[in-house]
């Protein structure tokens, strides 16, 4: 029977867990984060949509530029043709000047048109055709000017040719304008679509965010209501508790008065019983026979026993009222003192082996009582064994200090284990081993008060092992 072989009968203390965040709060947090992400996404989307719309608008403007420039080329060519023809017929110098202005403007305009349509292969081809036609028109007009002053017949071929060329110019510019019109329509429609999509996304997104935030608000309101109700419940419970506390305090005071009166009022008659029995014995020794003397001794012994019971009961009740005053303890030193204390009160001299004992925090006065009671019991119940031996050991185990007092005395029947720690409960007759049955109840109270456990293992005739644990508290500082 060793300390390690003993299974604790008291359930291990439940591990302390930190309280988790309630599910409701986690849900609200998640929804709120979702709303924030949604709004951030919407902001980004709105930014990019606006940028895209501006791009679309720029393309629409570009198309207008192409259409206007194309019209410019056409009108300048027509202007040049008209003024050249007029000058050829009238010789008016102002018409020649205007013709030169038109003719000079055309190449720059065609160049500008080329730059504007550089991205569109079809239009580039058409611009090249236009450039070629414009060149031919201007060459034809130069020939018209050269034929000035000649016969009307000499003027005819160049004029007719420029007419034909202008028809081609009309065809090309119309094609170009048609193409640009088509592009304009397409771009307008795309820009409108983009704006519509953006609007849908922004409105939809905002509605969605609003819904999410409303859900959040609803959950929060519910949670706050729940908390308010819980607080109200806690308040009511607290009041009940305070009432019960006051009642307990009253009961405690009554108990104190009760133990005071027990100690005073019960002891006084006992003292009288003992004293007068003794007076009877001494004053009437001459007339009392041996049997009368024995009867008086029984009276006195019973009185003494009752006095002991009262004292033990008081000690037990005092233990319940005492507050713990813990400090770090050198357990080896304490146990040494307790062994000496037990030895002073008994003639028994068993072999006592003390192993290394881990230090712990505890109330020195109360733990002294624990050790004195356990060692005293071990000495008492092994007193019938001529080779009595008591082993006191300790070890650290899973955050606890576990101490054991093992003896090779009479032990006890485990079938009565449940009575072992009760007040005034005994597993041996008083004639065999004196005692009132309070010692282990006191030990149980003290160990429980420290947050520890007490348990035992034994077998009849094979000794007993009493173990107790104390929580291993960190020494502050």
């Amino acid at each position, binding site marked *: 029977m060793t300390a390690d072989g003993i299974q604790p009968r008291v359930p291990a203390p439940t591990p302390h867990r930190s309280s988790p965040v309630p599910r409701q709060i986690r849900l609200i947090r998640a929804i709120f984060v979702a709303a924030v992400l949604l709004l951030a996404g919407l902001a980004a989307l709105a930014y990019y949509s606006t940028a895209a719309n501006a791009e679309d608008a720029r393309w629409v403007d570009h198309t207008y530029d192409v259409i206007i420039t194309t019209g410019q080329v056409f009108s300048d060519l027509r202007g040049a043709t008209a003024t050249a023809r007029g000058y050829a017929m009238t010789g008016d110098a102002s018409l020649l000047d205007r013709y030169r202005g038109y003719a000079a403007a055309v190449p720059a305009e065609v160049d500008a048109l080329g730059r504007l349509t550089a991205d569109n292969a079809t239009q580039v081809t058409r611009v090249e055709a236009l450039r070629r036609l414009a060149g031919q028109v201007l060459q034809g007009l130069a020939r018209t000017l050269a034929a000035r002053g000649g016969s009307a017949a000499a003027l005819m071929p160049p004029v007719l040719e420029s007419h034909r060329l202008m028809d081609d110019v009309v065809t090309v510019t119309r094609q170009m304008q048609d193409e640009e019109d088509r592009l304009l329509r397409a771009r307008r429609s795309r820009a409108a679509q983009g704006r519509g999509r953006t609007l849908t996304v922004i409105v939809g997104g905002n509605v969605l965010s609003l819904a999410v935030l409303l859900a959040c608000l609803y959950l929060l309101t519910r949670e706050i209501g729940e908390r308010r109700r819980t607080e109200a419940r806690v308040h009511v419970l607290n009041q009940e508790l305070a009432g019960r506390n006051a009642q307990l305090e009253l009961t405690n005071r009554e108990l104190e008065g009760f133990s005071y009166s027990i100690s005073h009022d019960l002891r*006084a008659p006992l003292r*009288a019983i*003992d004293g007068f029995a003794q007076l009877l014995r001494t004053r009437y020794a001459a007339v009392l026979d041996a049997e009368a003397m024995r009867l008086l001794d029984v009276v006195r012994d019973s009185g003494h026993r009752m006095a002991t019971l009262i004292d033990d009961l008081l000690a037990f009740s005092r233990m319940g009222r005492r507050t713990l005053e813990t400090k770090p303890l050198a357990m080896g030193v304490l146990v040494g003192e307790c062994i000496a204390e037990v030895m002073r009160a008994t003639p028994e001299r068993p072999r006592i082996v003390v192993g290394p004992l881990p230090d712990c925090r505890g109330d020195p006065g109360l733990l002294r009582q624990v050790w004195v009671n356990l060692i005293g019991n071990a000495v008492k119940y092994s007193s019938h064994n001529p080779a009595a031996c008591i082993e006191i050991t300790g070890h650290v185990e899973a955050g606890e200090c576990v101490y054991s007092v093992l003896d090779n005395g009479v032990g006890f029947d485990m079938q009565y284990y449940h009575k072992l720690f009760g007040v005034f409960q005994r597993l041996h007759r008083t004639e065999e081993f004196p005692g009132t049955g309070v010692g282990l109840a006191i030990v149980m109270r003290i160990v429980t008060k420290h947050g520890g456990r007490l348990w035992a293992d034994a077998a009849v005739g094979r000794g007993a092992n009493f173990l107790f644990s104390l929580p291993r508290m960190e020494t502050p500082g």
Partner: protein
Amino acid sequence: MSDYQQIDILYAEDNPADAELTLYTLKTRNIANNIVWVRDGVEALDFLRYRGRFANRSGGLPKMVLLDLKMPKLDGVDVLRAMKAEEKTRGVPVVILTSSHEESDLVKSYRLGVNSYVVKPVDFDKFAEVVTEVGLYWMVCNKIPEL
């Protein structure tokens, strides 16, 4: 000086059984012969102040006062307080007897200047021993200034 009687002990005790045992012990062991037994604190103070029942008593102050802690009307601590507050009675040794350690007046009594504080054992032999020791110490061994 024929009517002058030296009082050895003033003994205040409400329990007649305790009183009888104490008186028996003090007398049979020759600690004191002249013991005055009163039944409560009021009577004890009356005796010390020559009042009430003791208005016309003879003799001076006792050599010591033995007080039970728990008495009707004035208890032991009350009598002790009154005695220590009066110039005349301040010098008289006072021993308080109590039934058990449970009574928590030890500190109060010492603060008031009690000379001894004794727990009465239930066992008569031990009780007699304690009474004898206290009586011997304060009556025989202890020297007090002449009053």
